[in-house]
């Protein structure tokens, strides 16, 4: 997993961000450290089913995408 998938990743832009714990500046697409914790995203959600072209379905009705952040989603449930 990369930094961008971590719960403690604070994105400053599309390339990089800051670790909320260490305050270190980190790159989105570089491997995460050993303290990695999964960020809530659609791809980790019980209600998300992957389809094709990097798209999927949320609650079997709405198109969604696996990397969407779900920290504010009331329907999110860990797989």
């Amino acid at each position, binding site marked *: 997993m990369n930094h961008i998938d971590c719960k403690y990743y*604070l994105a*400053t*832009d599309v390339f990089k961000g800051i670790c909320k714990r260490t305050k270190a500046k980190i790159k989105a697409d570089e491997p995460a450290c050993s303290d990695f914790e999964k960020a809530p995203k659609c791809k980790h959600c019980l209600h998300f089913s992957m389809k094709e072209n*990097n798209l999927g379905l949320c609650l079997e009705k709405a*198109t969604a*995408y696996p*990397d*969407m*952040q779900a920290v504010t989603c009331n329907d999110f449930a860990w797989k």
Partner: protein
Amino acid sequence: MESKKIECDTYNYYGSKPEGEIQTREIHKSPSARVEKSRQLYFETKSSASVEFPYWYTRKWEELEGEIPIVRRAEALKAGFEHLTPAIFPGELLVLGKSHYLRGSYPMPWLSEAFFMAHEDRLYKDALEAGKVSADEVTTMGQGGGNVTKSIGNVLSIAGKFGLRKEEMPILLDVAKKWHNKSVDDVGHKYEQLVPGYHEKEEIMRAVICMFDSGYTLPQGREVMNYYYPLQYGIEGIKNICDEKLKQAAGYPGMDRIYFYKSVYTMLEGLQSWIKNHAEEAKLMASLEEDENDKSEYLEIAERLEWLAINPPRTFHDALQLVWIFHVAVLNEDAISGLSPGRLGQVLYPFWKRDMDKGILSRERSLELLECMRMKFTELDCFASMGVVGGVLSGNTFNNLCLGGLTKDGESAANELEMLILESAMTCDTPQPTLSLLYDEKLPEEFLLKGIECTKIGTGYPAWINNRVAMEFLLNNFKNEGMTLEEVRAWSIGGCLETSAGSWMPLDLDGVTHYIPGGSAPATSVGVHFISLPKVLEAVLFDGLDKRTGRRVYPAHGYNLESYEEVWKAFQEYFSLTVEVLTLTNNIQHDVWGKISPSIINSMLKPDCLETGKDISNKGSRYNRTFNVEICGGVNLVNSLASLKKNVFEEKNFSLATLKQALEENFGYISALETGSYSLTEQKQTQNFQTWLKTHKQCLDAPKFGNDNKYVDNIFKEWQEWFSGMCENYRSLYDEPLYSCQISVSTHGPMGAVTLATPDGRLGGTTFADGSVSAYPGTDQNGPYALFSSATCYNHASSQNSQLNMKIHPSVIKGREGARKFLEMIRAYLRKGGFHVQFNIVDSRMLKDAQQNPDKYRGLMVRVAGFTQYWVELGKQIQDEVIARTEYAEI
């Protein structure tokens, strides 16, 4: 082909040419350590787009098919706000942004979706065919700073500016396609074709005679925020007002009111979730924090947000945070440029003064908060097409903060907080918010000298604006809607230079009523966006053809052009046709915007929407005559008319046929589009150069605007008076007459790029003169006071604005004596009736060095039009033009 460099200095000077080392600016200040860290973080950050908001907006919109449109939109916006991922960056004292990125923004496909399609997509090709993306094709974006100019790794570049994560592209396309034939752009396009003359409109757009449509690009903005309701009532208080109004309106005639109040209520619920989500994020950040001070700051942020999600502000810090929340909230409901905070120092003064009197706020803390505010405004980006973001806005968002002016009862409105705002603009010299000083003879000298100190720092602000001229314009413009002398004093600048109506709002604080100013009119600079005057003249000379594309734009005019009067008449006819067809088509676009994508938050804020239950698109604002006609290249038009008149018709130095051939052959020079240099200097000759040498010299030697020369100034005056008068012949969507607006923003770059050489000697593809009364670079040779005389040869109050840019070498205004001399020069112009003047205080050689070594100049800023921007984020067209501007080495 043998090419030779034009024998001409790279720089244009009035006075002695500066010698020796490049001179830096006289004054340098620094922000607090906290803000300096934020600024460095900003410098490292790229403009980033996300799909989160449009995804949730579209998902909710689709769920609610059949719902009342304004309620459906409110629910969609609410879904967008409540799902935004919260982010709080280290050291921030003011929080919340457009998205979770520091320089974040997002596309709004409900306005226009074709732009987001891949270039090979059919939808994009349809847009191309309709002439909608012509401006995009001729625009250059800045290649440095925060622009993502190329796709790299997992990041895609959009419009040469915004980065988008690759994994978000499929969902963006999916969302965008859901708006096909449903967006404001598409629906508007369907109905605007009903306008007779629509064919000409498409050709006008394709020829880039007009820069862009109005209704679906930036439908709001160029206006002044009104923060009164949240400051007075808080969010829950406004919801209670909506509740009461709903009960009074339900079932009674005028039913649209209940849908409006329901929508406002819904929207506010969305904002409350958005704010509370950030409070939770602040608590999370606090839980991870080991430093006790930082932990405590995060907890304070959380507490403040939880309070403000419900209540009115308790302190200056609260008030500033709430103002920022509503500013971003409005920006997130539409693609907006030029949403100005207005006279914010006067709006917040009662809160600031109370805290200072209580001893709970210091000047140092005030300054730090104001610096934090500057960073938040600077982080704003506006997501729109390349032609709009690059060609018009130069990546800027035009949040104009105004200072000075008069109080409700006609006294100086300058205050101590405004002195601190000026100071913060020096210590934290970032592009946003830009500042405008509303000059009035009643303002104290100390305040004016503080303004001069800030101008001298070289950031281009404050712009100096004539309070009385603006008041005269507004009184005349809004007299039929009841504007009074007392009310007109509440005006402010919306956007870069758009004079906007305001009102005095009765803020009650501890039982004392403070009348605070706030905007009370909707978007200005909607209607007809930027007509290229030299391009219209080109069509006149070539009987309606666009020489770049070879396409017919206008019907043949039928004149033989045997006299100057015939040229002028043909110009008036083509220009009038342009205004007519663009007014009618843009009226339809805005009508469609009001039906599909009405403003809810901004409507709620603007008096008297909340009182009457009408949104902005239903004339809920107190003042509604805000549609205008914008132009570009006026000085090149007038210089060209003077050259035609003198060379062709009076002195008969050459025939019109010869001139046309010279223009087509670019006076024997290679096109600027080939050389990649867009100013008159540094152009390269072709072998054909000698053929046109004499003709070109005669064109260059014809009288030029900016020298107090009555020959050309009278032509300028005739044009101005005709232009302002003719605008009143056309009526806006709100059945009000249009008025004239004279700002170039950055359009003089791309519009110059598509225009042949002009009869004034300007070469093909090079940039037009900036502003509206700035001389063409290098042609103002009689000093600043001659320029002022030319610029004030007509009544500036007949138009929404005028714009004068000057470049001054730092040594000229050095020290106290230099500052005094500088102020007297500005006064002299404003006393002559000039509306606006602003300055680049810079050694031109530094700009050239910065162009060649951008990495050394990340923080260098220049004034372009009504805005300041980082040099490295400007396109080359505009960089070249700013370098070429006449540098005054004497005043």
